[in-house]
């Protein structure tokens, strides 16, 4: 038995089990059509609509970027790519409904292009205007964060910025595009789950999603109950973490090797 189970994975399996059990509980609860999960307010969400309106008033395009390297589909950051796609669907639907021009700056991972195009088109379809979708507004700048940064900056400078919505996986290249959007008097709204880069959003955005808030915001903008209960499942996970922290503290005070315990 011990040779089949990989050592040091028991506690991980337990966490996964807790999340899976909470998921099952809430998915079952969703069968009741009157059940409506609620989340606290996230001010940046309302700013997105405001930004599209501003773009229309100023006759400037809405820009959407998910990061130069935001098309990671087979890495540990894939969940952020999925969040970015949820926002892409939302912003393309919103732009189609309100009649604003949307420019999508695609990440350099070419393998993510089909999903991006499909998601954008889906947004236009949901708004009932698939004919408004134009492939030329999906911009690709070649491999590497640097060409991407230059391409986005050039697009901002040449086409103007009404709203710049930046959600996804961002690395050290993002300050330039965020600052350039600001320089062009665009409304900056954005966030990333990569903590190391959140500072750039906190400093340069008019409205920011701090770290994990992008996941919650994605649930809200999707208007999908399944996504919203996802946040409730996550809260269960957080309370489990509080429990582990408390338990760990107690055990450490009585002298148990807690580091080894959490490597179990």
């Amino acid at each position, binding site marked *: 038995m011990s040779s*089949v*189970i*990989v050592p040091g994975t028991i506690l*991980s399996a337990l*966490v*996964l089990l807790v*999340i*899976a059990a909470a*998921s099952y509980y809430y998915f079952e609860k969703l069968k009741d059509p009157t059940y409506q999960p609620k989340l606290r307010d996230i001010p940046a969400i309302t700013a997105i609509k405001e930004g599209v309106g501003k773009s229309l008033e100023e006759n400037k395009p809405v820009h959407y970027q998910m990061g130069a390297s935001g098309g990671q589909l*087979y890495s540990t950051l894939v*969940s952020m790519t*999925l*969040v970015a*796609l*949820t926002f892409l*669907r939302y912003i393309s639907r919103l732009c189609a409904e309100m009649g604003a021009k949307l420019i999508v700056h695609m990440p*350099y*991972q*070419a*393998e993510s*292009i*089909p*999903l991006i195009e*499909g*998601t954008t*088109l889906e947004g236009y379809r949901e708004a009932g205007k698939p004919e408004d979708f*134009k492939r*030329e*507004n*999906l*911009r*690709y700048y*070649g*491999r*590497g964060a640097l060409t991407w940064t*230059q391409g986005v900056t050039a697009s901002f400078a040449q086409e103007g910025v009404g709203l710049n919505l930046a959600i996804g996986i961002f690395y*050290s*290249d993002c*300050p330039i595009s*965020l*600052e*350039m959007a600001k320089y062009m008097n665009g409304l900056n709204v954005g966030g990333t*789950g990569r*903590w190391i880069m959140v*500072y*750039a959003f906190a*400093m*340069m955005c008019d409205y920011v999603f701090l*770290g*994990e808030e992008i*996941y*919650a915001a*994605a649930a809200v903008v*999707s208007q*999908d109950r*399944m996504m919203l209960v*996802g946040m409730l499942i*996550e809260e269960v*996970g*957080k309370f489990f973490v509080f429990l582990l922290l408390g338990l760990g503290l107690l055990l450490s005070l009585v002298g148990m090797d807690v580091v080894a315990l959490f490597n179990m």
Partner: protein
Amino acid sequence: MSATWRTLVPTLIVSITALLVLAPFFINIPALNSVQSILNSWTVIISAVTGCALGLVYMTHAIYASYQRNKDMEQLVMGVTTYVFIALHLGLALTQSGGVNSPAYQWWYTVVYQNVGATVYAFMFFTLASSAYRTMILNSVEATSLAVGGLIYTLRQIPLFQTWFPWMVPLGEWILLVPNVGGSRGAVIAAALAATVYGVRTIWGKEISLREVS
């Protein structure tokens, strides 16, 4: 039928693939390890195949549309420049002995790509500086925390201030190793939980971001 092939099958592919890749983390069965390694190699191959030309197609669309919108000489020159540099690099890689390792290819790659790459990062010094000038104002508890953390750790890294204020070094290290660790650990745990929930939901086939992608 159509919904099955367009929706159900891709959802199943995601779930099964994810479980096959995840399983060897918990269970030690050689066959599972082999399957995992095949799937891993497929991801590299798929991304390489798309990297060969798909991006170029989309780039061409945007360049052509841009020229159609604004048929002036400058647009034409810029469009042509991109293709000249594509042709130059492809030509060197195909004709020079050693391909991308040939001195001619390396020369161009270094001169164009490395220089611009390094300069773009250099450029960011100015963007961050102007942004901090606008936002690092001590007008609230949060903004003050950001500004104090930022300024102390900046000064800690600058030799002149290390000399003038030697206490800046231990203070900067303290900022890095205590409040920074406390805050960033909380943020990392929270984001990891969110990612885990996304993962579980995707395996369950309930993830909306992949649903009905046209």
